[in-house]
């Protein structure tokens, strides 16, 4: 059963991600990415990461992708007529790399490492993460907030029409 789920999600994820790259129209690319996000969220659920699954949908699908689509629409981007000239080389390299990476990552049996943190699978995944975020990971959390601050103001500065407006 779990294998079936995995195969479904994995299949769609791979397919949509290839479509993201392959589709000429950016809008379609974005939409297939959206499908991929949903399926990644599904995969997270099978891995008992319900909180992340939710966040994935809310943040990625709900915010990020919408932003993308917004920009695509805003700029009225035309169909991408062709790939970059280096595409064959890149594809070849990608294949080589893929072979190597797959060879490398599949060679190894992963064991459970000693856990110093609360188990992730226990009931209330969201509470656990929340607790950890505000205790153990307080510092990164703060840094992340700064990153968002930078992103916010940075986006304004870069995107606004006239600097002297405000």
């Amino acid at each position, binding site marked *: 059963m779990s294998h079936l789920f995995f195969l479904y999600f994995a299949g769609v994820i791979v397919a949509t*991600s290839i479509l993201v790259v392959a589709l000429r129209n950016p809008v379609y690319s974005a939409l297939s990415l959206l499908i991929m996000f949903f399926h990644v969220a599904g995969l997270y659920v099978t891995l008992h990461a319900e909180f992340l699954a939710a966040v994935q949908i809310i943040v990625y699908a709900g915010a990020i992708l919408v932003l993308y689509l917004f920009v695509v629409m805003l700029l009225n981007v035309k169909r991408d007529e062709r790939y970059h000239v280096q595409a064959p080389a890149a594809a070849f390299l990608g294949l080589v790399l893929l072979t190597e990476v*797959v060879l490398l990552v599949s060679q190894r049996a992963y064991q459970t490492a000693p856990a110093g943190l609360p188990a992730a699978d226990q009931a209330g995944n969201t509470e656990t993460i929340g607790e950890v975020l505000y205790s153990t990971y307080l510092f*990164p959390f703060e840094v992340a907030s700064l990153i968002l601050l930078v992103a916010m103001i940075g986006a304004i500065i*870069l995107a606004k029409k006239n600097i002297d407006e405000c």
Partner: protein
Amino acid sequence: MIPVSYYLVLSAIVFLTGLVGVLVRRNIIVILLSVELMLNATNINFVAFSHYFNNVAGQVFVFFTLTVAAAEVAVGLAIIIALYRSKSSINVDEFQLLKW
């Protein structure tokens, strides 16, 4: 129980698809989408490991990755808009003021 390697192979495929996407697409927006693919692949890794180690650290990492991804998108799209304003193009291979 699905072996971790399955997830790893999946994420590797997605990651490399994204990577190739960055290399072959000219539209800067699609390039950013490809970067999102790479980040998602990473996230799959983290979550899978987190599951198999039965520890929450990986999931926390993903949480932060998501945050960073959002921030990057914001900044990135801002840059794209600004660029589009000045050059009326978002094809990366047409930005060649700076070279050599």
